[in-house]
């Protein structure tokens, strides 16, 4: 297999901002033709979100937007134009999947609800990724990854006891839980089409994949109620924590599960093997003193040197890396060619995440940069929307392809 596995799959993509765009990036990078349906009238707000190439604001210059939209095509069309629906329906006839992460009802207002699309293409898969799902008393509620984290319990379980919940500090549900679950569901539904010819509607509520990622915690809490968070500690093992190393705000995560690892840690750190820390049970009992003793011996050590020394003795540990470390310093990510630089014409080079998997036969690298706003409008309008040349060339105010 020398091609990409998803070649031949076409996606009409109404997704914007967060989780939706990351979902369709997964598909476009693996070979699907993802047509990002945009408009100058209402920009994807990530196009104007910092950071910008050379610090200059512009719709094709956001590094954040670029990373989430690699390998896609961009069509600009004003969905409020009276001819928009018919033009998009012609695209739908030639597509396999239609995606959106709007509030429920928006696609229906465009005349692009599932039932209407099914009428023109029974094989179509319609996937909505609203915050709370397509139906229900709170379906219109709005939110972002951070509020979803609070709503679903992620915030609660991530923090120090007695302090304000911390969460991940990011819109975590947008980046992995929702995109991966949604992409999986779409690929499964595509398989069903191949086997039976039957398309369908997929409803992803952005709360639910996040709760699925907390399944054991939620299931346990249903039995015994809420408990305070544990910080970096675990109920059954110590040490299990983050310890200071040399430098400002530098840390090393260390976990020791048995006596052999404990002996190795003591030797590498030069910690005397004290009686009160001898067994796993004792280390649990005296965990505050244990953490202090370890920190006293890590504080002046270089984090990377210490990691190498401890790993050499079979102790699980890892430097708490910053964005700078993972980009410039991490040898493993470099070995895997994780970071890819690609050029946007007229803008310059920007940095992209390659997917975290490598195939033995198919390419795993990105296919191309994010599209410039409307970059593929003429091509798509002619070939797929079947619009006349005068419509494609129209530059008047209020035009369809805006």
């Amino acid at each position, binding site marked *: 297999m020398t091609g990409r*596995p998803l070649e031949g799959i076409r996606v009409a993509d109404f997704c914007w901002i967060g989780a939706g765009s990351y979902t369709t990036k997964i598909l476009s990078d693996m070979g699907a033709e993802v047509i990002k349906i945009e408009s100058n009238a209402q920009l994807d707000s990530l196009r104007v979100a910092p950071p910008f190439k050379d610090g200059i604001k512009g719709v094709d210059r956001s590094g954040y937007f670029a990373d989430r939209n690699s390998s896609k095509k961009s069509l600009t069309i004003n969905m409020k134009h009276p001819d928009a629906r018919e033009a998009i329906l012609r695209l739908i006839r030639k597509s396999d999947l239609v995606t959106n992460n709007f509030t429920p009802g928006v696609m229906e207002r465009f005349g692009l609800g599932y039932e209407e699309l099914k009428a023109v293409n029974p094989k179509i898969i319609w996937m909505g990724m609203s915050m709370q799902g397509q139906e229900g008393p709170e379906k219109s509620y709005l939110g972002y990854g951070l509020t979803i984290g609070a709503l679903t319990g992620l915030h609660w379980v991530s923090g120090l006891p007695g302090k304000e919940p911390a969460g991940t500090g990011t*819109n975590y549900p947008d980046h992995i839980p929702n995109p991966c679950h949604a992409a999986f569901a779409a690929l499964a539904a595509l398989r069903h089409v191949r086997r039976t010819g039957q398309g369908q509607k997929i409803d992803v509520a952005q709360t639910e994949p996040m709760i699925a*990622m*907390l399944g054991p915690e939620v299931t346990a809490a249903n039995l015994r109620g809420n408990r305070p968070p544990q910080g970096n500690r675990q109920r059954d093992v110590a040490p299990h924590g983050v310890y200071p190393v040399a430098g400002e705000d530098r840390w090393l995560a260390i976990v020791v599960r048995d006596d052999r690892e404990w002996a190795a840690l003591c030797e590498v750190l030069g910690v005397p093997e004290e009686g009160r820390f001898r067994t796993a049970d004792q280390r649990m009992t005296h965990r505050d003193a244990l953490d202090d003793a370890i920190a006293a011996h890590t504080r002046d050590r270089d984090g990377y040197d210490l990691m190498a020394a401890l790993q050499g003795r079979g102790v*699980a540990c890892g430097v708490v890396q910053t*964005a700078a470390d993972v980009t410039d310093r991490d040898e493993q990510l470099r070995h895997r060619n994780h970071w890819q630089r690609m050029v946007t014409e007229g803008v310059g080079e920007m940095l992209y995440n390659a997917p975290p998997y490598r195939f033995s036969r198919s390419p795993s690298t990105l296919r191309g940069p994010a599209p410039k706003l409307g970059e593929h409008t003429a091509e798509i309008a002619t070939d797929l929307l079947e619009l006349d040349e005068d419509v494609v060339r129209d530059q008047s105010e209020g035009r369809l392809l805006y």
Partner: protein
Amino acid sequence: MTAPKALEGLRVLDLAGPFGNYAGKMFAGLGADVILVEPPQGAPSRGIGPFLDDRPGPDRSIRFAYENLGKRGIVLDLETAEGRDAFLDLAAASDLVLESFGPGELERLGLTGDVLRQRNPALVLSRLSAFGQTGPFAQYKAEDLTLLAMGGLLFLGGYPGEAPVAAGGGQAVLCGNLFAAVACMVALTGAEMTGEGQDIDTSIQESVVMALENAVQFYDLEGTVRQRYAGDQRQAGAGTFDCADGQVYLLAGGVAATKFWINTRQWMADVGADGAEVLFGDEWFGIPFLRTRGAKDQFRRTFESYARSQTRAELYAEAQRRRVPLAPVNGPADLKDNKQLQFREFFVSVANALPGTDLLMPGAPYRLEATPWVAGDPAPALGEHTEEVLATLAGAADQPTRRAKA
């Protein structure tokens, strides 16, 4: 009539390794026949909590029960020739093998993808590991905490001036499982179209890197290293606030900030919050001002003067009515009372999810209307289906490769 299943006819061997079984669960939920293959001493995830009553035991892990719902379970000792032969027979009649033993283990056992595909060219082999199958850190020992660290997400979590704090629930390993599952569906799509399978090498560390939001781009384009900020508002109006029965998370600033800010200050004015009139100054539209200590303190005083008299539920409903992105800070036990999740029948009650214990678990993470997610039977007891599986599959092994293509 039962509904069709999206992954009907797909057989998955889920080799129980150190990085859990969530990827296999995703296949089971959409109708694949997923067979958990455990060593004689049981899957490592039987030893990972949370446990019933906090007491460990092979049939007491809630994580095991959750991640293996809907699977069958067999015992094979891959250290013996007999066990390896049985596994080769099973692999010949399967579409996908999931493993997370670590680099070198399948090679040592003589069960690499190339070997498995001699009898079944369409087979996909998913290899999930901490750092990938090759490279300078490939043999590094890893835990969820150390992978969150090396992937860069840990640095962003927690309170300024203190050690970073990890995301709860084992998220690094789950991120790896999720990307592995997606990659499997991609490779299976290719295998079903062409008849050719392949190996997939998924790194958990690299999966965690995907969660860094815009931190890497800020570093690359502006040279700034993003910091953690829990315990404080990121900017005035964005953060955690106290209310009568706990806390809420408010995002009056941030993406598309302006309209949410206008809605929020009007809300404060309408309810007569202390100092609401101050929020109407033009300076509140400027990000640099919102980052000042004074702005943050002023906003907190005003918002909490009102919020402390309201419950989380009351604030949630009122904020949403006013189109302000606010959510309650729920504990995991609060979710079963959420009206929207109840309407969607999100939770599933699984009888005997662990022997003698019923569990109320999160259910379908997505709703496929024509091919709905199914909970399936409880996670298998150790070796529960060994005889049944070996008897039915042994004969199927030498049949031509099965193809799902219509």
